[in-house]
């Protein structure tokens, strides 16, 4: 089973990488850019009996390791 976990910074947490990209795009003369935020994805190929089992295992992984819930949110998306 293939899953994608998307990890984004919580609102209110400053995102230096996003800011830097914004600046770089600006310097390259791209216009109309209001806001850039960067996040990460983790693609996991996991053996699981079904979607529910997969989601619950992945949630535990996020809580225990993949996301730092002090600053990050995560979303789980089972792909097939």
């Amino acid at each position: 089973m293939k899953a994608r976990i998307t990890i984004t910074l919580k609102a209110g947490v400053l995102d230096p990488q996003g800011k830097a990209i914004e600046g770089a795009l600006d310097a390259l003369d791209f216009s109309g850019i209001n806001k850039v935020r960067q996040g990460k994805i983790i693609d996991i190929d996991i053996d699981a009996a079904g979607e529910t089992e997969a989601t619950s295992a992945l949630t535990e992984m996020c809580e225990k390791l993949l996301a730092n819930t002090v600053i990050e949110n995560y979303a789980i998306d089972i792909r097939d």
Partner: protein
Amino acid sequence: MATALEMVSGVKPVMVWHQETEIPDVDLIAIPGGFSYGDYLRAGAIAARSPVMSSLRDKAAAGVNILGVCNGFQILTEAGLLPGALMRNAGLHFICREVHLRVENTNSYFTRSWAKNAVIRCPIAHHDGNYFTDPDTLKKLEDQDRVAFRYVNENGNVNDTSNPNGSRNNIAGILNDRGNILGMMPHPENLIESLHGGTDGLGLFKSMLENVA
């Protein structure tokens, strides 16, 4: 770090492998700098989940003194033993340079040999030292005198240009609520002898020794 501890205390520290599950009885546990697991995922994240950590948690709860420098600080926040998180430096680059710190708290196990508001030189060398925490926690840290060190200019003033990495309130190091855990990004162990061009970092080791003696 091990060399620094040995040099200052005369006692050779015991090294503990990350896969071990028991930490021996000691006066101080030091988690040194360096990259752990290549700092993949997030700095200190994977190390903070290694087997040895549960013993570290027990020691922390039992009041054993724990020092985390640089990657050690990142590991302690990732493990939840210190509040907040260390994010990518605001300038996005790794930074290795000497900065000035103001010693804010001078009654902890780690800082008591310094005079209040002493301004010291100290090197930094990190990619993820941008201290972040939510406003409530930040207020608590400030109110409870748990900010141990702050980045300042050479005159001891806090401002944006003296902040190398974007840390909230120029925070360079913090204590836990009980005062037995210190995490700091700068490397005092790299300024303790004439070879290093100064000894300002000795204060940390002197503070800790006062207690051992």
